[in-house]
């Protein structure tokens, strides 16, 4: 069993076979993944947009905290929950 709590020093990345896609018909951003489609809310989309394959979760939390003028601890908690949920479903991976 793997520990699904992502480390804040880890670098999240979108694995092959997962695509961020704008659904024109429904006017929303989605993640297309093997036999799954994940609708992204504004928070999810903001996190996905920060995932560039080099930034750590820590750095992403700081960036979003500055952008949204919100406490970094709260943002970090949101990110961990979002990322852990997608990791459990093999839709997002984190390089440690």
């Amino acid at each position, binding site marked *: 069993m*793997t*520990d699904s709590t992502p480390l804040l020093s880890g670098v999240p990345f979108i694995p092959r*076979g997962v*695509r961020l896609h704008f659904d024109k018909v429904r006017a929303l951003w989605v993640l297309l*993944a*093997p036999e799954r489609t994940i609708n992204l809310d504004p928070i999810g989309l903001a996190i996905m947009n920060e995932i560039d394959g080099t930034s750590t979760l820590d750095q992403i939390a700081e960036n979003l905290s500055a952008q949204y003028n919100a406490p970094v601890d709260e943002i970090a908690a949101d990110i961990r929950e979002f990322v852990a949920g997608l*990791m459990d479903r093999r839709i997002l991976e984190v390089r440690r």
Partner: protein
Amino acid sequence: MTAPAPIAMLAELTHRCPLSCPYCSNPIALAQKERELSTEVWVDVFRQAADLGVLQLHLSGGEPASRRDLLELVKAARDAGLYTNLITSAIGLTERRLQELDAAGLDHIQLSLQGTDADMADHIGGYQGGFNRKMQVAEWITQIGFPLTLNAVVHRKNLHQLPRAIEMALEMKARRIEVAIVQFHGWALQNRAALMPTRDQAAKASRIVADARVAHKGTLVIDYVPADYHSDYPKRCMGGWGTTGLNVTPDGTVLPCHAAETIKGLTFDNVQDKPLSDIWYRGAAFNAYRGQDWMQEPCRSCDRRKLDFGGCRCQAMAIANDPAATDPVCIKSPLHDKMKQLADGFANDETAPLIYREFP
């Protein structure tokens, strides 16, 4: 009511298949090669589907690799913006063809597993050498790096191999495994006595899946289709009839579900005659079981009607001879006891032979 746009489309590119699995869910009467849609028509259908709101395209069959234009079709699907999944037995795929599919942008492969060793797999698939070939292709798939789902179809004859199937998915570095206890539609209906799992097997499979989900959390995602006839509540019919997905058969007939042609009295449209959008929103077959107005008791006043939509219409047709009846699996159906007896009767038939399907 206004129907939502569909999310998924199953494109049955061909009914041709080198395997002859006794649990094949395709209809008894298969579409001949001459009646298959041309490349150009499929390409147009993919564009129409994307415009309609389809995000996920499943290329299926038969064996989709039997289509010589598979590469062109995958390219066209990706150009249309569709997430493109190939549902295959691996027969007909070479290393070179996989590399070409990779370059064409194929997103994902779902590989079927008939058994965990050559004896079982080739016996069930009715194709000698199929298992070894599949294992070779699986290696290439892993090397190229395609995201992979292993689709293990299990039944009375191979359910004891389920733990090994899960190990194999891990060895192949598959992200997902679909453990599907065989569903009885199409050709499979006549093999119920040979394939029906026992009640004990069905319960054990559920435990194995639950344990494996915990053990492999974060490594392997497990989708599970439980044994239908042994259940107390029905499966969710297509996630809601005419709400989520559609099927296009090799000759272009558009179906609300894979087995819908078994429902007498429904009329189906063809992509060669009408725009896909008209068929989805206004087609008689799609509107037949949308919403709840068609429901009878006990569904009509049941709290679960929004969960399972009354269950499987094709099963209501097959067992209750009324496509608007409650799925006979349901504990509230007057036929539930009959269903249990059927299930136990089939499961205890030790002499039933496998009836293989043959391509005409």
